[in-house]
């Protein structure tokens, strides 16, 4: 059947690419959006539209904030199912650990704490028994921000990128991992299949038949961004490999892992367990100042990104201070640990060995904590090129087969085409509809964030139903009008989102760009408008000659 090497590669590329391409499309598109997740958060939560803030003083501000922080009811309920007997009242639980986290793009500060409980676990292997509390605060005043406001960028689009929001047994994470692996395979097989890799490097012939021009676009976007695609699929796998895909240290080698923790604690001087003796906390601000001095001495002065306290209130307590990584790619925290009761330096983390350094570079490359706006936009461009590559792959699949399927009365193309509509225009439509819902739902509505999520899923489902309903022409080798109709809907939704942002918050583009520049919001608005323009252009183009189908509609969906 498959008599040449190239043909068998083509088979792998076609079928694996088709099946997991839908997942890859989601990963690429929401990955591109996640580059600007914090900015989308600002757009979605107008109360937080102020400048990014450094880590606030612990002694003067955070200490009181943490004193007011209580175990979260959600985690109370989740923990209650894992333990024997009733949990004590949340006010009585002692806080034993805490963290505060910020980045150079965050006006708000995320904090969280662990509370100790006396209960025994139901499952004896369950060894991490704490109740957690968390909040997002305004670092200027310490005031907590309403908890049920969904951070659409960092808590919806970003997890969608790596987990598809399917959390049951982490299936989403594994599916995305499999898709990343298939992406690597598709890249290799794609290069082998390609007959004129260099000769047609710059070739795109929009005036040829749809089948030819989509293949051109597929090849071009795939080949020119090959290093980008390769590195992102690969580093994505690296990031999750040890935690999700091969968690041997937590399963197979668990006793070894636990023993190692204890030995490592002896080695580093950071106590593994509590002493059981209460102790006061020395000035954390003084420790922060000392950490900054040490960083400056190493010629890498910087701000605090993460502050953690372990064994809070115990004689063995220690404070860990990590640097915000804004000026380099590698994720290096340069962590410095202090004894909580005295403020003396317990340990400075040494520079990493070569393997560790490579790992830090690879993960940093993907997670991008750096401060470099040009590079961020280039990442978005790369991600969208990936989307174009996958979308044109679908269109080519359909174009190549639809004549034959029409003759033989098969429905396969019809289904694939409808799925393609759903994952290309439908997905973008769902994301924008979510932003529209965010501006339309009343602020005081209980469970507002959940309604936004439901809007997202509902619109996506509707786009699938719409694409299926309109798909009959594909079975007769014509094209699905759903492409065009969803483009129009998308354009409308984008413009509506920008207008609603203006109406509900008063932040119109003139203000956010010129009068009181606030580029996080202006960028989202501008990108929405760019997306609207591209959709209108595509829709008109599709209407003019139904046969010249341009799959590059996602080209400008770079709304931050």
């Amino acid at each position: 059947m498959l008599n040449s090497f190239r043909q068998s590669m083509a088979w792998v590329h076609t079928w694996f690419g088709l099946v997991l391409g839908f997942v890859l499309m989601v990963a690429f598109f929401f990955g591109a959006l996640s580059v600007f997740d914090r900015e989308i958060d600002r757009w979605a939560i107008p109360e937080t539209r102020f400048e990014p803030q450094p880590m606030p003083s612990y002694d003067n501000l955070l200490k009181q904030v943490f004193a007011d922080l209580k175990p979260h009811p959600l985690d109370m309920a989740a923990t209650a199912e894992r333990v024997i007997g009733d949990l004590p009242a949340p006010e009585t639980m002692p806080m034993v650990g805490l963290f505060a986290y910020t980045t150079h793009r965050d006006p708000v500060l995320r904090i969280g704490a662990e509370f100790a409980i006396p209960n025994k676990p139901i499952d004896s292997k369950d060894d991490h028994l704490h109740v957690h509390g968390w909040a997002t605060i305004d670092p200027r005043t310490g005031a907590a921000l309403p908890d049920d406001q969904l951070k659409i960028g960092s808590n919806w689009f970003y997890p969608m990128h790596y987990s598809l929001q399917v959390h049951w047994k982490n299936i989403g994470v594994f599916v995305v991992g499999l898709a990343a692996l298939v992406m690597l395979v598709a890249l290799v097989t794609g290069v082998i299949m390609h007959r004129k890799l260099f000769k047609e490097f710059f070739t795109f012939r929009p005036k040829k038949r749809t089948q030819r021009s989509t293949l051109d676009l597929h090849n071009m976007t795939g080949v020119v961004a090959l290093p980008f695609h390769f590195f992102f699929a690969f580093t994505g796998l690296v990031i999750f490999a040890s935690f999700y895909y091969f968690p041997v240290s937590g399963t197979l080698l668990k006793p070894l892992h636990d023993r190692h923790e204890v030995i490592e604690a002896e080695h580093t001087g950071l106590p593994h367990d509590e002493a059981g003796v209460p102790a006061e906390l020395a000035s954390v601000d003084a420790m922060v100042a000392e950490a900054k001095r040490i960083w400056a001495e190493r010629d890498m002065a910087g701000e605090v990104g993460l502050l953690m306290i372990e064994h809070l209130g115990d004689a063995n307590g220690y404070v860990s201070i990590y640097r915000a990584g804004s000026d380099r790619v590698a994720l290096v925290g340069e962590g410095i640990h202090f004894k909580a009761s005295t403020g003396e330096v317990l340990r400075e983390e040494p520079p990493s060995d070569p393997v560790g350094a490579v790992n830090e570079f690879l993960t940093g490359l993907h997670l991008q904590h750096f401060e470099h706006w040009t590079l961020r936009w280039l990442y978005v461009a790369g991600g969208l090129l990936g989307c174009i590559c996958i979308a044109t792959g679908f269109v080519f699949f359909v174009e190549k087969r639809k004549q034959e399927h029409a003759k033989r009365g098969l429905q396969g193309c019809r289904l694939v085409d409808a799925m393609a509509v759903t994952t290309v225009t439908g997905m973008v439509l769902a994301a924008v509809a979510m932003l529209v819902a965010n501006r339309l739902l009343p602020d005081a509505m209980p469970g507002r964030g959940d309604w936004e999520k439901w809007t997202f899923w509902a619109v996506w489902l509707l786009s699938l139903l719409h694409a299926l309903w309109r798909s009959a022409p594909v079975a007769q080798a014509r094209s699905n009008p759903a492409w065009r109709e969803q483009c129009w809907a998308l354009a409308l939704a984008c413009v509506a989102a920008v207008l609603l942002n203006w109406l509900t918050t008063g932040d119109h583009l003139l203000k956010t760009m010129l009068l009181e520049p606030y580029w996080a919001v202006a960028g989202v608005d501008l990108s929405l408008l760019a997306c609207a323009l591209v959709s209108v252009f595509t829709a008109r183009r599709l209407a003019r000659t139904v046969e010249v189908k341009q799959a590059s509609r996602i080209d400008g969906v770079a709304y931050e």
Partner: protein
Amino acid sequence: MWLATGWLALSLPAHWRQVFVANEVAPGYLRPLGWLALGVSVLCCFKADHPSMAVLVWFTLLPVAAVATAMTLSYRPALLRVVCPVFLRAR
């Protein structure tokens, strides 16, 4: 970067014909010139940023420039004459 990919593209016979509508081939030195310009762009990136950042900027700029060149070739091929002024066209 756009210059570099432009020169590289023009060094391919099909695209040369597309831009200049003549039955000739591109001068042979255009291709080395393109590679050289790519090299210069690497140096520029390194000069502007921390090395680790510069690598990423260059690698992500590459596809963007290449796509820009390809789109120019498809829709406005005449524009690419700019990157290859008359004195460069001689063989």
